C-alpha cells in the first residue's frame, strides 16, 4: 500500500453521509410529490417541516415522549398539508405555474412568520430520538443515532412507496398527477388527490424536520432552510419528477458532501452549501432530467 488509508473512517463517514442524505431524502420526496402533481417546486416545504418540528417540540414540552410526539406530529402535519392545499392552492389550481410559485413563496413567509409569532425566540432542542451510544458493526463503531435516522427516513419513504404502488387511492393519485383530465373521466376526484399529495408531502416534511432537530444542540425558525436546499439539490440530482431519483440523489449527495468535507480539507464543513449549489447547477447544465427523471416528450 502506498499510504495508510483508514477504511474505518471511510465507513463511518459514509454512514454519517447516508444519515444526512436520508433526512434530505424525506424532504426531497415531499418536493417531488408536489412537483409531479402541480409542476412547481414548493418553496414553503422546508418551512412547513419547520412548523411541524415546532409542533413536535410543543408536544414534547407538554410531556409527550419523542416517539409519541413524532407520530402525532406526522398526523397533524398531514391534516395541515391537506388544509393548506384546500385553502391556499386550490384557488390557483388552474392558474399559470408562475402564479403557483409565487403563492408557495408567500406561503414560505407566512409559515415562517406564524412560527415566529407563536413560538418566542428562545433556545430550543428536541430530545434525541435514539441512543447516542456507538454500536459496533464488524469492528467499526457507528452511532446508533445515525443508523436510526437512516432507518426511519428510509422507512417513511418505503411506506409512501407501498401506498402509491399497492393501494387504489395511491394508484388514483399517481394517475391524477400525470393526466388529471383523463383521470377525472374514470370518476376520480382529482382535486382531492392534489390535497392528498400535499398532506403526504407535509407528513414527509415533518419526518425530516423531526429527524433534523435532535441532531442539533439547539434550533430556531431557520431550522429547515439549509435542509430544503440540500433536498432540492438531491431531488434535482435524481430527477425532479422521480421519487426514487429523489431518494437516491439525496443519499448520494449526503455521502458526497460528507466525504468531501472529510477528505478535502479546504472545504471542510463551511463550504457544504456551495457544494450542494454546485451540484444543482452542474446537473441542470449537463443532464437537466437528472439521473432517473424522464425528459418530457411531447407528442404532436
Amino acid at each position, binding site marked *: 500500500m502506498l499510504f495508510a488509508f483508514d477504511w474505518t473512517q471511510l465507513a463511518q463517514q459514509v454512514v454519517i453521509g447516508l444519515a444526512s442524505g436520508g433526512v434530505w431524502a424525506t424532504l426531497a420526496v415531499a418536493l417531488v410529490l408536489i412537483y409531479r402533481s402541480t409542476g412547481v417546486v414548493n418553496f414553503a416545504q422546508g418551512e412547513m417541516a419547520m412548523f411541524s418540528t415546532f409542533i413536535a417540540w410543543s408536544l414534547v414540552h407538554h410531556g409527550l415522549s419523542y416517539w409519541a410526539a413524532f407520530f402525532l406530529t406526522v398526523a397533524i402535519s398531514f391534516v395541515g398539508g391537506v388544509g393548506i392545499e384546500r385553502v391556499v392552492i386550490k384557488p390557483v389550481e388552474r392558474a399559470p405555474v408562475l402564479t403557483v410559485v409565487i403563492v408557495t413563496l408567500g406561503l414560505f413567509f407566512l409559515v415562517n412568520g406564524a412560527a415566529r409569532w407563536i413560538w418566542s425566540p428562545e433556545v430550543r432542542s428536541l430530545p434525541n430520538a435514539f441512543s447516542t451510544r456507538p454500536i459496533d458493526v464488524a469492528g467499526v463503531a457507528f452511532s446508533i443515532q445515525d443508523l436510526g435516522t437512516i432507518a426511519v427516513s428510509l422507512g417513511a419513504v418505503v411506506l409512501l412507496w407501498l401506498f402509491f404502488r399497492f393501494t*387504489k387511492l395511491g*394508484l*388514483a393519485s*399517481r*394517475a391524477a398527477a*400525470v*393526466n388529471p*383530465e*383523463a*383521470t*377525472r*373521466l*374514470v*370518476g*376520480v*376526484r*382529482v382535486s382531492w388527490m392534489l390535497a392528498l399529495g400535499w398532506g403526504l408531502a407535509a407528513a414527509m416534511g415533518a419526518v425530516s424536520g423531526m429527524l433534523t432537530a435532535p441532531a442539533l444542540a439547539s434550533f430556531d425558525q431557520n431550522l429547515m432552510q439549509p435542509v430544503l436546499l440540500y433536498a432540492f439539490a438531491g431531488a434535482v440530482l435524481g430527477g425532479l419528477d422521480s421519487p426514487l431519483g429523489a431518494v437516491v440523489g439525496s443519499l448520494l449527495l449526503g455521502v458526497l458532501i460528507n466525504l468531501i468535507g472529510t477528505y478535502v480539507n479546504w472545504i471542510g464543513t463551511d463550504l457544504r452549501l456551495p457544494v450542494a449549489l454546485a451540484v444543482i447547477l452542474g446537473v441542470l447544465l449537463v443532464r437537466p432530467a437528472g439521473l432517473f427523471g424522464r425528459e418530457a416528450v411531447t407528442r404532436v
Partner: protein
Amino acid sequence: MPKALLELEDVTARYGPVTALHGVSLTVAEGEAVAVLGANGAGKTTTLRAISGAVKRGGRLAFEGKSIARSSPEAVARAGIAHVPEGRGTLTELTVRENLRLGAYTRRDRAAIKEDEERVLGYFPPLRERRDQRAGTLSGGEQQMLALARALLLRPRLLLLDEPSLGLAPLVVAEIFRIVGELNDEGLAVLVVEQNAALALEASSRAYVLEVGKVAVEGESAVLRRDESVRRSYLGY
C-alpha cells in the same frame, strides 16, 4: 320508442370567451347507438365534453331522467357515463393492468371487477399479453383498445367515444367498431363522434350532423347514408 337515456336540450358550451356550442339538442335512447358527425371545429368533441362536464356548459342535460347540468366530470362518470376522450386518454406511465384497475375506481365489488376484467380482456386479447407493460409502449390500436377496456370497467350505461378511428390502420378501426357493435348489441348505449362519416353511419342507428356548434341535420343513419345532398354538403364524401 324506448325511453331516453340521455337528453340534451339547447346545450351551449364555451372555452373562455369562445362559444363552441350554440344550443345543441340530442337524445340517446337506452341501448341505442348514435353518431355525431360534422367537419373539424363543428363542435363534435365539445358536445361530448359538455356531457361529461369537461367544459363549461349551459342548457338542459339529463341522464336517466336526472339533471347532470351541474355535475363535475367525476360525478358524471359515477352516474354511469364512460367517456373515451380524443387522443384516448390512456395513462401512458401506468401499466395496462393499472389502467384497468383505475377504470373500476368507483366500484367496490371486487369479485365482479375481476370478472369484468377477464371479460374485457376477452374482447381485446392483445391487452392480455401486455398486462404488465406500460401503456405508453402499446401501439395506437392497442391504446385505443385499452381506453375502451378501461371505460367498460366502469360498467357504464352509456359510452361516449371520441374519434375512435383517429390515426389507426383500417383493419384496426374495423376491429374496434366490430367490438363496439357487439357491446351495443348487448345493450350498451353508445354516442360516437367521428370524422369518418361512412363508418359512423354504418355503426349507428341514428345520427346528428353538427355545423358550427348547432345541429344542422338529424335522422336515421340509413337514410342519411343514402341522402346525396346531406352527404355532399355536410359529410364530404
